């Protein structure tokens, strides 16, 4: 008797457990649920978390993500309007905003990702191809900050834009959202992650960068030489000017002194005929003293004033 009672209890407990698990379900904060009855959606989607109920056995809870989900595109080779081939790698974040619609259209997330691939890749291609490369790179017409000597050379190399990266991203987002409207999803944001040149173009860019740099290097070097020459020239000019000025001044000083001396001499010597004679006489005497030495031989006549007394006393 007791055994039978126990089995009955156990059976009731098991049945109750099955009933509970079949009629309740837990919705996490990150989830939303669509209830289906024999595969057909019933009622509104459940978007709030907590313990929820359903009709056991005949209803099924289909869980969907409520958070923003990632979409990461493969890098696409896309030509720009100015015929540059670039790889565009972009990302988006999206959300299931209408789980019921989403359930009808997409069934599951994998299908949605693949639909998003089609939509966003297509839009990206269209919009990138409609703009020049620089429009997808720059987002404003800011003026570059000078970085010294180099940027003086190429500072104006930032080309101005009319649309810009931010707006192109916005356009892709808008038109993608329009196409994804009836899928029950909304794309929150679309952005270019990486834009890079295709391999061949990259080589060309390197060549351009190299030639640009070497041009700057050459210019800088020749500027240095020019500047050095200028300083050298200044040095030479100044040197000559200093030297010649000094020479001129010295000559003037000496000339003035000579003139003054001459005037002094003239005033003394040119006083009268006898002063002139005395001067001439003294000068010749002085000349004797200065010019005669032991190499000089003289033949002196006894008629001379000096030796006239040698012969006889007159």
């Amino acid at each position, binding site marked *: 008797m007791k055994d039978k009672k126990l089995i009955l209890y156990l059976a009731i407990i098991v049945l109750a457990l099955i009933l509970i698990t079949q009629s309740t379900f837990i919705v996490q904060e990150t989830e939303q649920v669509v209830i289906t009855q024999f595969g057909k959606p019933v009622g509104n989607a459940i978007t709030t978390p907590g313990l929820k109920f359903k009709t056991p056995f005949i209803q099924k809870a289909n869980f969907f993500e409520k958070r923003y989900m990632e979409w990461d595109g493969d890098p696409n080779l896309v030509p720009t309007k100015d015929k540059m081939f670039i790889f565009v790698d972009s990302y988006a974040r999206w959300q299931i905003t209408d789980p019921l619609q989403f359930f009808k259209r997409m069934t599951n997330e994998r299908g949605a990702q693949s639909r998003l691939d089609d939509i966003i890749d297509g839009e990206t291609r269209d919009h990138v191809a409609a703009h020049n490369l620089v429009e997808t790179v720059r987002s404003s017409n800011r003026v570059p900050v000078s970085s010294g000597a180099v940027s003086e050379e190429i500072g104006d190399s930032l080309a101005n834009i009319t649309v810009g990266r931010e707006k192109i991203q916005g356009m892709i987002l808008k038109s993608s959202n329009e196409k994804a409207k009836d899928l029950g999803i909304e794309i929150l944001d679309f952005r270019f992650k990486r834009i890079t040149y295709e391999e061949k173009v990259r080589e060309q860019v390197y060549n351009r960068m190299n030639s640009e740099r070497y041009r700057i*290097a050459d210019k800088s070097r020749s500027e240095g030489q020019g500047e050095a020459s200028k300083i050298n020239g200044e040095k030479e000019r100044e040197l000559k000017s200093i*030297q010649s000025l000094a020479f001129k001044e010295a000559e003037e000083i000496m000339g003035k002194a000579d003139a003054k001396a001459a005037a002094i001499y003239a005033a003394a010597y040119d006083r009268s005929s006898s002063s002139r004679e005395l001067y001439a006489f003294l000068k010749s005497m002085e000349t004797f003293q200065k010019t005669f030495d032991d190499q000089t031989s003289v033949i002196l006549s006894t008629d001379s004033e*000096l030796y006239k007394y040698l012969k006889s006393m007159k």
Partner: protein
Amino acid sequence: MTNNQFDNLNLSPNAKKLLKNWRTILISLILLIIAWSGFFQIGPEEVGIVTRFGKYTRKVDPGLNFKLPFFEKVQKVAVERQQKLEFGFRTIRAGVKTDYSTSGYSNESFMLTGDLNLANVEWVVQYRIDDPYKFLFKVRKPESTLRDISESAVRQIVGDRTVDEVITVGRTEIATKVEEMAQKICDDYSLGTRIDQVVLQDVNPPDPVKAAFNAVNEAIQEKETLINQAKSEYNKVIPKARGQAKETIQKAEGYATERVNNAKGEVARFNALYIEYVKAPEVTKRRIYLETMATVIPMLGTKIITDEKGSNVLPLLQMQLNEKTIKE
């Protein structure tokens, strides 16, 4: 029935007592399990997010906390810990001498600048989770989302600058702008993260053009050197020339003074003499002549004195000549 079975066994009185109280033991065991799964600890750098049947109920602070067993779940989020995302490189082993690896991450660091050149930018994003609720429940894969945001923001900011700005003067400004922009996108996505800092690490031109960039730097150095050399040469020569010029002028002035003074002196002497000369011109003249001769003649070498008539040969002269020949 069960009691009967136990009675059949040979057990000590203590064991029998234990078995008698099995209900109490079972209940206390269950209570223990409840306590065990109900109490939980939150570390000092964390907060706990408690959900009941999946629904967020409360946030709990560090320390010992209690939740309803089975019905409530707790997720711990390290809100105080600063976390780091690396772009273009990865830290292999942090330590006193940290090892980095850059190979394989060039896709992350490679980007177009506004002048359509290429640059390699490596950077770090430091962030904290400032809203654990959003962090857990608003965005799936928040970390990879933050990576995407960072890459996009850096490229957008770098895309508006020249390669020279990126490599040289723009570094700090770029980091600040990226921080602002990335934070704004985080807020738009309800990511629940706060970006503390964006730090640009190595920022370089790509390898194939590095040599050319270095050449520019070298050329700039060379330019400076050439100019400095020229300036130094200038500074070596010009002050010296100025000094020499002064010397020349001073010498000229010296000459001038000397010349004038000499003239004055000579004239004074002449004048003095002249006064006397005028008194007795002939005598004075003769005296001077003879005095001059007296000083000049002894200095001379060979002296030959002749008489016009040739009758008087001077023995004195002869003697002098002889002496000379003997000496030779």
